[in-house]
């Protein structure tokens, strides 16, 4: 089995060493540096997730990915995720097809229904429609990826009649995934529409998602589709020792989850919950390279997954701490996971 390893960011706003937040503009420039450095460190994929908030100022990740594409050769570049429900699938396709052209075929896209929901009011969508919006738009996106003129009609955007959508793809569809947070019906949808499966596991024991991989594979068979990969996306932070990684990550994790708790229904983190989530059965990959490598290897096995994406950073971490994280992930964790799984 061939495994691939990625890094994802939400454009988490950096702070300086004294704890003062950097500007949004500087944070965005830092993300571009991080993407370039990820390639040098040996990472296979760099993903940017769409967010529209003060602490995740990253609404146009595809523009940053284009900057990274111009300065790299091999690393694959994609969204993680694109909130498709509040975007136009034709525009999303065009932006990532353009990124695919610029990067010589290195673009990917992970489509989400929208667990970060700030884009809905921003662009005038009703959250109560999120299921219909995603179902229709994912269906249209699957059509666009096939290439060639598209005919489509639905309720969420104007119809397309034999429409030629440019730019044309040079060498067939680019990889496209659907991000799933825990709804098994979303797993079925990914299989039905022919998308790969991205499992976002941000809390609780990752092994409970093993049945989702099985469900995805069985559903692909049922729909007569060839096998498609499964990726696991989880947050984490790597430093020289477990203690250092936890000490760096914990205050920022606590603060951001507390801030989002009311909106997202998260429990406010405690010392106890943090210990559980950073332990062997938790969803956070925080620790030394060896600790994190063991955990990634164990969960790739348990979940029968092909790819692991570490969502690195957290609002309030410094650019230096993040660059160290990227270096340790690329130079130590990834080779060690490959060794453990070989």
């Amino acid at each position, binding site marked *: 089995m061939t495994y691939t390893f990625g890094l994802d960011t939400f454009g988490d706003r950096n702070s300086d060493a004294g704890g003062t937040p950097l500007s949004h503009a500087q944070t965005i420039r830092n993300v571009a540096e991080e993407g370039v450095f990820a390639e040098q460190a040996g990472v296979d994929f760099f993903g940017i997730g769409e967010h529209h908030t003060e602490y995740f100022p990253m609404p146009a990740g595809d523009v940053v990915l284009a900057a990274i594409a111009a300065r790299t050769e091999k690393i694959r570049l994609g969204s993680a995720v694109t909130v498709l429900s509040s975007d136009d699938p034709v525009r999303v396709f065009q932006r990532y097809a353009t990124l695919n052209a610029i990067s010589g075929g290195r673009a990917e896209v992970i489509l989400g229904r929208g667990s970060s*929901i700030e884009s*809905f009011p921003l662009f005038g969508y*009703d*959250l*109560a*429609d*999120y*299921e219909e919006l995603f179902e229709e738009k994912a269906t249209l996106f699957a059509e666009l990826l096939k290439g060639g003129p598209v005919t489509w009609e639905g309720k969420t955007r104007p119809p397309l009649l034999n429409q030629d959508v440019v730019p044309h793809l040079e060498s067939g569809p680019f990889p496209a995934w659907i991000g799933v*947070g*825990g*709804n*098994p*019906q979303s*797993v*079925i949808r990914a299989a039905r529409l022919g998308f790969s499966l991205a499992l976002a596991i941000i*809390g*609780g*024991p990752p092994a*409970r998602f093993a*049945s*989702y991989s*099985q*469900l995805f594979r*069985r*559903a692909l068979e*049922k729909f007569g589709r060839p096998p498609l990969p499964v990726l696991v996306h989880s947050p984490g932070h790597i430093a020289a020792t477990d203690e250092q990684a936890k000490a760096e990550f914990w205050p920022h994790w606590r603060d951001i989850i507390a801030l989002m*708790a*009311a*909106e*997202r*229904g*998260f*429990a*406010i983190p405690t010392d106890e919950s943090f210990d559980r989530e950073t332990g062997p059965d938790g969803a956070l990959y925080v620790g030394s390279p060896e600790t994190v490598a063991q955990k990634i290897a164990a969960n790739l096995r348990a979940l029968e997954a092909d790819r692991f994406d570490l969502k690195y950073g957290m609002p309030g971490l410094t650019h230096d701490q993040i660059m160290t994280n990227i270096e340790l992930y690329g130079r130590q964790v990834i080779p060690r996971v490959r060794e453990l799984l070989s």
Partner: protein
Amino acid sequence: MSTTTAPDRFAARPGGPPLAVLGAGHVGPVIARLAIKAGYPVAIATSGDPEDIALITELVIPGAQPRWAADAVADADIVVLAMPLHRFLDVDSGLLDGKLAVDAMNYWPASDGVLAAFEDGGSSEIVARRLAGSTVVKALNHIGYHELEDRARPAGAPDRRAAGVAGSDPAAVATIAGLVDAMGYDPVGLGRLRAGRVLQPGGPVFGAVLTRPEFELAVGEEARSLT
């Protein structure tokens, strides 16, 4: 099948009374698995064809029966409402007549958008008004679906957590307290459905996973002020 004579119409029977879980999204499968583990016979249904969830049931909820909603409800004593709240508005209000309905749903505008029908009052009270022929208990709504299984513990475990059960019918509250207990939580009864407002988003226990003393401390005064 259900009879209408109070108060033992919800009495436990060997294996537990049959349960229908309506909803196969984030929440429904988790509640169904915990109920199956607790020994209850469980059917699961969506608004559509059971064939659509056959594979989900086989792999993600082994032991449950995928059925049409009307059939699952007809054969159940307890019906767990685990669909998104806006989908509940599409449910035929007579479907659950004579049943004990557990409202595990939440009205959560920040996350799911504004629903005019739920803007005024406790969401379970509004659910109960729409289900006039049913007995409604609010439970299993305030612990996140991603934590509900992970934190379940058998009775007597030192790290067992509490879960609220709010309803105005004491026999119904006792039955659902028994379900919650068997699923792995210390049930804390709140003597009126209206008191279940403390379990809602924005309330003192929503999203928190508390021990019984912590839970009672958190809801205590507010529960009293509402009842």
